[in-house]
Each structure stands twice: as C-alpha cells, then as structure tokens.
C-alpha cells in the first residue's frame, strides 16, 4: 500500500494568468477511482497579465472554461480539506492556478508508481454560449452552447481535433453521460481535442455542411437581408419563440465549424490548433427530402422536434419560402463525395461516419407483396442497408472511416441497446467510442500545429 499525493500539475499560457474556483468533486472521499477517471473539476478564467492588457484575450467568445482532473493511477481517493471552497467560491475563480496544489491523494495497492503518477491528467473544457443570457453555473458545461470542446495533452504533445457534426447517435458517443466528454477523456490515451456543435436549429446533413463550407460573406448577407425583409413588416406578429429561433438560425448560418481554428492552453502553454483533423458525421441525419430556399437556393433541415421550437411565423416562413427537394441515394452519395473532396482540399480533414442500424428483431416479413418496389424506397431497413452499402462504395474511392453501428447493434442486440435505431445504451456507446478512437489513432500527428 502506498499513498500518492495528487497535484494539479502545469497549466498555463505565457502572458496570461489562470485563476481557478474551488474544486467540485465528481468522486467522494474514500471512493475507489480508476486510472484516468475524472474525479473533480474547477471553473477557470484566463486573463492577460498587465503587460498584455491591450492584447486580444484568448477564449474571447468562450465564457465557459473549466478544468476536469483525473488521476493517472487507480486507487482509493482521499480528498484534501479546503480545496472545495463551497458556495460561490466553487463557482468563481478566486485562487491562482498553482501546479503544486495538492487536492488529495490516492492509496494504491502497492507496487512501483512512475514519477508523474501524482500529477493529475487535465482536460480543459470550453463552451461558447448561444447567448450570454445562458450563463448557467450548475455543472460541467451547463447552459446552452453553440459549441463546446474539451482537450487534453501532456508536455510536448499537440492534440488532434475531432469535430462532431452529427446528431444524437454521434453526439451521445462523444459527449458521454454528462455531456462533457468525460468518457472520451478516460478512454483516450492520445492527445485529443473533441469539439461538439449542436444541431440547434439546423441539422448537419451534408447539403447543409456543403452550404456552410462554400458560403461567402455576401451570400450570408443576402440571407440575413431576406430574413429581415420577410419578417420586418409583420414584426409585431412574431412571438418570442420566433425571435429566438431566427436569432439562433442566423447565428448557425453564419458559422463554419468545419473551418474553425482553436486556441488551447495546456502544460505546453498557449497553442493554436488549425481546422479539425477529423469530422464525425451521422448517416441517420440525411433526409430523403430537404428544403431549399426558393430564391437564394440555400438548404434548410430542421428536425421535427426543433420545428416545434419555432413560433407560427417562422413555421409559416419555412413552409412558403422553401421548397422540398427529393434526394435519391445517388444524390446523397454525390453530396458525400463532394464534401469529402472539399474537406480534403480545404482543411485536410478526414470524415468518420456512423452508419445505420439496418435490421429489427421485431420484423418478420414473410411476403413482400405489400411493400412497393423498389423496396429501398419503401422499407426503412432495406433503405438503411442500401445507404450503408453506399458508404462502402464511397470508401472504395475516397478516404472515409465507417463506424459500424449496424454490426455492433446486431452483435449486442438492437432491442436492448438501440431500441429506436438512434439512441444507444451506454455499453454500446463505449464500443462505438473505441472504434472512433481507433480511427483517430490512425491519423498522422498535426505537423502544422506549433506551440505558440
């Protein structure tokens, strides 16, 4: 039996000071902890020191900054009294980040531990609020964000970035049970940054992503002007839900997550990371028909439950200003190919995609007379099989990694682990997460990303 003190370890950026709150524990005193299991977290602020006070602040639009800590070894946790300040002192950043601060200790079962065993692993979380009104301090990355991210790396490492632009099937895997990347952090041995962009209110199907990556400022201005022109005369008729939907929609139309660059702080100081190295997509989000604006030609895909968030004026606008465009499987394949080619050309990002569950233990079709041919246009499971095969056709000629949801669900049992075909159990998410991390391990380290 040996006791290893747990210390915060280095985190900083030259020219900036880091202040932290009191710790909020995720594990309690006396509980057993796995190696790399998050045990607590802090809020932090990063501010320029006086010498840089006129400089550009890092994380300028990311008000939510937190640090999650995890031990590198397993054992029984003993927490240090005094590091959890309680009340607002565990919300506000009131103490300087001191790498030597001891927050507790781990009792191990014995054996040799490495010299760095007591230095905590750190994951930094950053959240960009959808609105500054959404300042909720309750928990990890609480509130409403237009983008959240978490990264971890040790000295000398530069993280690869994975951007999740999927819907529930992809986001559940990367975000985890507490929507804060905790499972990814625990499972990954590689230096990584995980970025999550929600589908509020536009769902990230491929036509939407292609629009985003190619839209010019002038085209966005034309969209915004058209929206203003349409709604201005009837402004009094808009209800709060309409205003909120439109504001969020315009904000999303203006952003291009596929090209985002990122500031990070770590033991290496301040680093700038370029656009994502990999993008995680969901085949399940692709619609068979998508709305296209009648005059400006841009696409709109709002999931049904998000349509309900709009007020009547916006719902009427979606019905009249847009027209539905049918998409054949061939059109969907071409959209994917165009996106993969465009990303390869513009950012070098590799596409990782979750395929679809294509069977159901509850179906017992013995005669197909009642289902119109071609069956891929009628039966959802046949369509899912054809779409999954389409991904393999694409992968024949282009770089594409397929997360095999179909095989994993069939192996584990769809009824228990994927009952509606989209939302997985935690056990299934763990297996999919391993597949995604496996693809990330296959990517080359980012040569272009230099410490600042």
């Amino acid at each position: 039996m040996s006791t290893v003190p747990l210390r915060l370890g280095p985190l900083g950026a030259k020219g900036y000071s880091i202040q932290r709150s009191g710790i909020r524990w995720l594990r309690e005193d006396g509980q057993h902890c796995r190696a790399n299991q998050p045990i607590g977290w802090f809020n932090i602020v990063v501010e320029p020191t006086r010498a840089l006070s006129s400089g550009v602040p890092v994380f300028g639009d990311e008000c939510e900054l937190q640090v999650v800590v995890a031990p590198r070894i397993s054992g029984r946790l003993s927490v240090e009294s005094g590091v959890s300040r309680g009340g607002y002192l565990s919300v506000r950043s009131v103490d300087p980040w001191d790498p030597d601060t001891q927050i507790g200790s781990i009792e191990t079962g014995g054996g040799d531990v490495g010299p760095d065993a007591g230095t905590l692993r750190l994951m930094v979380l950053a959240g960009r609020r959808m609105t500054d009104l959404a300042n909720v301090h309750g928990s990890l990355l609480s509130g409403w964000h237009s983008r959240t991210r978490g990264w971890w790396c040790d000295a000398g490492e530069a993280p690869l970035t994975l951007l999740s632009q999927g819907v529930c099937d992809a986001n559940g895997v990367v975000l985890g049970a507490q929507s804060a990347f905790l499972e990814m952090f625990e499972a990954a041995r590689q230096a990584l940054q995980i970025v999550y962009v929600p589908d509020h209110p536009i769902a990230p199907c491929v036509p939407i992503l292609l629009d985003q990556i190619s839209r010019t400022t002038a085209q966005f201005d034309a969209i915004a002007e058209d929206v203003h022109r349409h709604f201005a005369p009837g402004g009094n008729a808009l209800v709060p839900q309409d205003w909120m939907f439109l504001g969020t929609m315009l904000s999303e139309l203006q952003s291009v997550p596929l090209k985002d660059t990122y500031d990070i702080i770590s033991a290496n100081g301040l680093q700038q990371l370029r656009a994502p190295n990999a993008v995680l997509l969901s085949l399940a989000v692709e619609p068979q028909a998508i709305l296209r604006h009648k005059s400006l030609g841009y696409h709109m895909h709002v999931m049904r439950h998000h349509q309900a968030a709009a007020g009547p004026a916006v719902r009427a606008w979606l019905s009249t200003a847009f027209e539905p465009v049918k998409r054949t499987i061939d059109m969907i394949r071409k959209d994917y190919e165009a996106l993969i080619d465009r990303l390869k050309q513009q950012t070098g990002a590799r596409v990782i995609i979750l395929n679809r569950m294509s069977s159901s233990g509850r179906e017992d079709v013995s005669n197909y007379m009642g289902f119109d041919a071609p069956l891929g246009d009628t039966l959802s499971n046949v369509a899912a099989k054809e779409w999954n095969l389409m991904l393999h056709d694409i992968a024949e000629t282009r770089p594409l990694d397929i997360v095999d949801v179909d095989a994993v669900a069939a192996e584990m049992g769809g009824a228990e682990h994927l009952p509606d075909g989209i939302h997985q159990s935690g056990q299934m998410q763990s297996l999919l997460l391993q597949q995604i991390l496996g693809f990330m391990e296959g990517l080359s380290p980012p040569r272009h990303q230099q410490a600042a």
Partner: protein
Amino acid sequence: MILELRLPDIVPQMTGATAECLFAEAGDALRLGSKLVDLRVDLSSAFAQECPPISYYRIVLREKAYLRQINLQPGEYVGLDGPVALLSSSPDEPLDQTPERPLRITVAGILRHDGMFSGGDL
C-alpha cells in the same frame, strides 16, 4: 369467422399510433400480402426531454380476408391495443359476434411518403 385487428405493440414505449394512410375500405376483399394501413408512431410523450423518435410502419395481411369495418381515418389516433379493424373470412358474416381470433399480419418499418396524412408537413 370474424377476425379483429387491434393496434399491436410495435416499438417499446409506444402508447399508440396515428393513421397516416388507408389502403382499403369496408367491403374490400383483401388478398394475402394486401396493404391495410400506414401508421406513425411518435414517442414524443415518452422522450419529451430529448429528440423524440418518430417512425412509420405498415400493416400488411398475412391471410386473405374481407375488410368489414375500419375504425381509423387518416390523422386519427388509436391507443395501444385499441380497435383498428374487423374482418371476416366470408363477405357477409354478421359482425355482432365475438371475434374468433386476431388477424394475421406483418408489420414493417417504412419510409415516410407523400401519400401520408402528414406528407405535406415540413
């Protein structure tokens, strides 16, 4: 012989379904493999806090029968195990008798199509 069709348990957590499309009317002689009704199962009530799955299903006959009474119209909701239709093995058997057994059917997930009651929705 009177056969009855009640709304079957198609997916876990469902409490009912909405008729989207009828393929037959009372008096029709239906063959094995005939389409009867397309349904929408909306789990919004079960998963109101998260994105609610909405899925579509088709009920197809696994035996020949005469459709005698249909209790659903497009857009109408029926609860789980609620009455959907009465059928008979010959065209003019009186319906005022207890159904002898459930109709033999196949249910399969289908894609949304323009012929549905909600087909014009966004």
